[in-house]
């Protein structure tokens, strides 16, 4: 039987060649590779967040408009079900992706915002990073930061509230 490393090597070679399909049979085991056969695979992913109940989203290879619509709905913090009374009127800035929360552009720099800070729609409030993709999160609302809900360096979930903002 082939070792994993050898299979990786084979994938590499097949990828670089003009072969469309590759079959290897030896001693009862069989490996089949096909270049464009992976079109219909469907992956299931669980997304959790504090405000939104756990929910599965089917990701399809084709651009799936209905799925996007569904996600939009789930991210919007407009239905504060489990929010304390005193924060009922506060706006939540949520994380658009899973990743690491950074309060400042670099470890030595000052935080983008602190409680009490005034923000406008395009103020940057933090960075969420995953796999060296940096997402500068904008407030998307005019108001005042009331509370920072995430710790510097903490892993945050998709849809997780990061800040409470008192709208103006």
């Amino acid at each position, binding site marked *: 039987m082939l070792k994993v490393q050898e299979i990786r090597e084979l994938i*590499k070679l097949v*990828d670089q060649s003009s072969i469309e399909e590759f079959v290897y049979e030896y001693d009862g085991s069989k490996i089949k590779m096909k270049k464009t056969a992976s079109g219909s695979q469907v992956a299931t992913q669980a997304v959790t967040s504090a405000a939104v109940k756990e929910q599965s989203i089917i990701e399809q*290879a084709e651009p799936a408009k209905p799925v996007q619509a569904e996600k939009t709905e789930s991210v919007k913090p407009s239905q504060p079900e489990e929010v304390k009374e005193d924060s009922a009127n506060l706006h939540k800035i949520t994380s658009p992706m*899973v990743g690491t929360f950074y309060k400042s552009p670099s470890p030595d720099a000052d935080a983008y915002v602190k409680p009490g800070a005034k923000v406008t729609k395009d103020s940057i409030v933090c960075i969420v990073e995953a796999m*060296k993709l940096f997402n500068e999160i904008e407030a998307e609302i005019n108001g005042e930061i009331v509370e920072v809900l995430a710790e510097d360096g903490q892993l945050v979930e998709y849809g997780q509230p990061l800040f409470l903002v008192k709208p103006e």
Partner: protein
Amino acid sequence: MQSELRKKLIAAFTNSGTEYLSGQTLADLAGCSRTAIWKHIEELRKEGFEFEAVRKKGYRITNTPENITADEISFGLKTKFVGSNIHYEETLDSTQKVAYRLAYEGAPEGTIVIAEEQLAGRGRMQRKWHSPKYSGIWMSVILRPEIPPQKAPQLTLITAVAVVQAIQETTGLHPQIKWPNDILLSGKKITGILTELQAESDKINSIIIGIGINVNQREEDFPEEIKQIATSILNELGQPVSRAKLIQSLLKNLEKLYLLYLDKGFQPIKLLWESYAISIGEFITARTLNKTINGRALGITEDGVLLMEDEAGTVHHIYSADIDLKGDQV
């Protein structure tokens, strides 16, 4: 920015290969006078292009300058949209900053920003990226995929695969990927990739992919503090490499993989990424802002997240970290 006429002219010479193109044919293709064509050819000569002009046959390009100007990158470029807009500057603070602004102002998908040197190149956590003149590829690419923002990090792994394929194609060397997207030769870094996102909560406006490749630096060009961890293609290959050819190959492979990803999803990219990965199955150290995890790299998930098993047998999902391979001194 190249003029539309210049773009058409370069494209015509790319397609004609070794055939001659007459002044009239060029004028017809570009929709201008033969005098205008002649003026453009003179300008290209000044840039370092060499032309052979034969009476009654026309022109062909016999030699190209060793530059990475927009003209030099477009001559021989075979992509549909990646690199069709080239913003070239001799010196920039950071190609990423300029690309970020251009993307914000509505630059079309596939626009690239490239410089001969960066005065303030940067890496993760605002770390400095050493990018001296004429020796490397300092470039940013703007893409506008219609995918949810939480999938955007996958683009950084796609870029890593494209860089590996381009270096293999151009030099015959076989680089490896260290999660998520550092490219190594002989265990030392030759490429760093940093990506930024412009997005609303549910929609990507643009992704700006910054790519730094050490190409023709000699060993003595590296500052003492990074000599142990960084190298260049020249160092490993023993001879200089045409940066323009490497860029063309990179843009071609990036476009191919990007279209494959939009069509088929991340799965085919994951297989390719794993086939080039250096650390899978190995003992590694992952350093995050708050903690350090030692353990064995198991692989990546369907989203590109690193799976790591620590000594106690707990499996960690790593989204961001600096990875040290076993034996690293850092």
